């Protein structure tokens, strides 16, 4: 479904850019920095269990308290940032590779194969996302790898559609016809001009998909699949802490807030990117 939604472009959009765009970007940069510096910031080993200090509230020793197995919540949050971002980025990247790759291959092989292969992509898209990811993970097993692949497959259609939309839009343009008339290879022309346009569209899509990947991974962890117990993601922390919600609300609030902050920043950031790149562009339906 494609809806033509002209955005409000007036002069104000430009000046708001500096303030509104700065905050989400700053938060994201901060989170990435925390994720990278995690092993040095975390005061405790995230797997270290202090069996005598279960479900402790935040205090001077454990800044965010401990969880039901005596592990330091702050350390897990900070190390969890790594795995969460890894799974999110990995999933989005896998979706890009599967989707754009598969889509472009389908497109370059001609109209017939395009119809067939995109029919298959439609099929994947029609399947309820969580369900597909669930089945794939049960089939592939637990852990960061299988989850990333499952997320990649589930979200690949979005990238495929964007690739196709841009491809067709470019392919209809004059310079391609001109190249054809002059005997040049239209594919070459497309590649040269396609790439920059693609990048723009795909980055936007990635910004939309990243939070969805992270949330889907959280849901999967919550349902009992997803990352392994030794590699905490924020979603897994929510899943494990949900059983002790009364005894240790801090243990569940910390990762929930972290997820919310991440998804908020990403969506604002994605919004801004979209506005900067092409404010009048048709939004590819998703």
């Amino acid at each position, binding site marked *: 479904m494609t*809806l033509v939604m002209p955005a409000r472009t007036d002069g104000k959009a430009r000046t708001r850019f500096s303030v509104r765009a700065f905050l989400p970007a700053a938060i994201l940069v901060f989170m990435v920095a925390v994720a990278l510096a995690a092993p040095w910031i975390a005061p405790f080993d995230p797997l270290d269990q202090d069996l005598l200090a279960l479900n402790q509230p935040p205090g001077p020793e454990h800044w965010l308290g401990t969880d039901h197995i005596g592990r330091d919540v702050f350390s897990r949050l900070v190390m969890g940032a790594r795995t969460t971002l890894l799974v999110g980025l990995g999933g989005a990247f896998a979706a890009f590779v599967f989707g754009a790759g598969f889509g472009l291959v389908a497109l370059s092989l001609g109209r017939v194969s395009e119809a067939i292969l995109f029919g298959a992509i439609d*099929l994947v898209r029609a399947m309820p996302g969580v369900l597909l990811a669930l089945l794939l993970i049960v089939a592939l097993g637990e852990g960061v790898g299988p989850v990333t692949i499952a997320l990649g497959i589930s979200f690949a259609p979005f990238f495929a559609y964007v690739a196709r939309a841009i491809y067709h839009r470019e392919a209809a343009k004059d310079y391609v016809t001109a190249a054809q008339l002059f005997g040049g290879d239209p594919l070459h022309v497309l590649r040269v001009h396609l790439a920059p346009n693609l990048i723009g569209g795909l980055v936007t899509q990635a910004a939309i998909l990243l939070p969805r990947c992270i949330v889907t991974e959280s*849901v999967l962890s919550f349902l009992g699949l997803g990352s392994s117990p030794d590699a905490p993601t924020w979603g897994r922390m929510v899943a494990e802490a949900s059983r002790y919600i009364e005894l240790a609300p801090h243990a569940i609030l910390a990762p929930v807030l972290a997820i919310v902050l991440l998804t908020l920043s990403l969506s604002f950031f994605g919004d801004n990117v979209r506005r900067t790149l092409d404010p009048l562009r048709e939004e590819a339906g998703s």
Partner: protein
Amino acid sequence: MKFLANAGFDLGRMLIQALGIVVIVFLLARVVPGDVVDLKAIEGDLSASQQQEMRTELGLDQPLIVQFGQWSWRALHGDFGDSIRFGRPVGGMVRTALPVTLVFAGLSFVLALVLAIGIAVGAVMTGSRVLRSLVEIVNIWSIALPTFCIGVVGILIFSVWLHWLPVVGSMLLPILIIGIDGAGQIVKPLYEELREAATSTHVRTAHAKGLSPWRITVRHLLPTAVPVALALSGLVLAGLIAGTLTMEVLFGLPGLGSLMLNAIQGRDYPVIQAAILVTAIGLVVVNALTDLLHRMIDPRLSR
């Protein structure tokens, strides 16, 4: 005429999609390691030969084509067979679970529409800053806050601390959560469409004529709002399926979502297949309806 032809063509394409989904799930479910006999073996300490006997009894050792053929043939006649885990007729299990999900999804959807239309129309009509902020807030809410997080926090607040709601079985909280989530997905585009419509010549003329804001709303805005909201809500409906699954698990609602999840965990193939068939058909119907609505609103889009 062309309209009907296009609609028919799309319906056909969607039915093939539904079939495709069923086949994929059939295969995926069997690729998944372990089957129902393994589960029973764990619980009941079955020996290897006993497991083999059970598999033959349940027909699990036949070639996949045969299994699929048998199942499809019976399904076409409305016979979904018996659950290999519980021995109960699958049709009955689906029939008990479906209304729960339909009620849940239906009420959430209605709530989403009412909220979205209410907020968007209100914001356009009154121009109040509160309502305009509400548009943004609800929109951001649905983007940033995962429904299961809200669900967990909601249980904490309303069931554990306040004791207002029972811990399991009550649909009130999940409907609210999914409803708000759905509203958030459509309220912003709806608001912008309406704002555009509000600046159109009809409305300006009506305003100039001195018609009350209420009459303008009812005669000009609402008729635009409702179809547009319905068209947008195709997205919401498709997302409802995933949303209801997590909510059903979290709140213990015995709907199609938990039926499917339990069936996947229990490797109960007949139940998985029947549930996914019903879901796929539901998706097809929903997609067909929304596309139809979409075409009726915007004839430009008819291919």
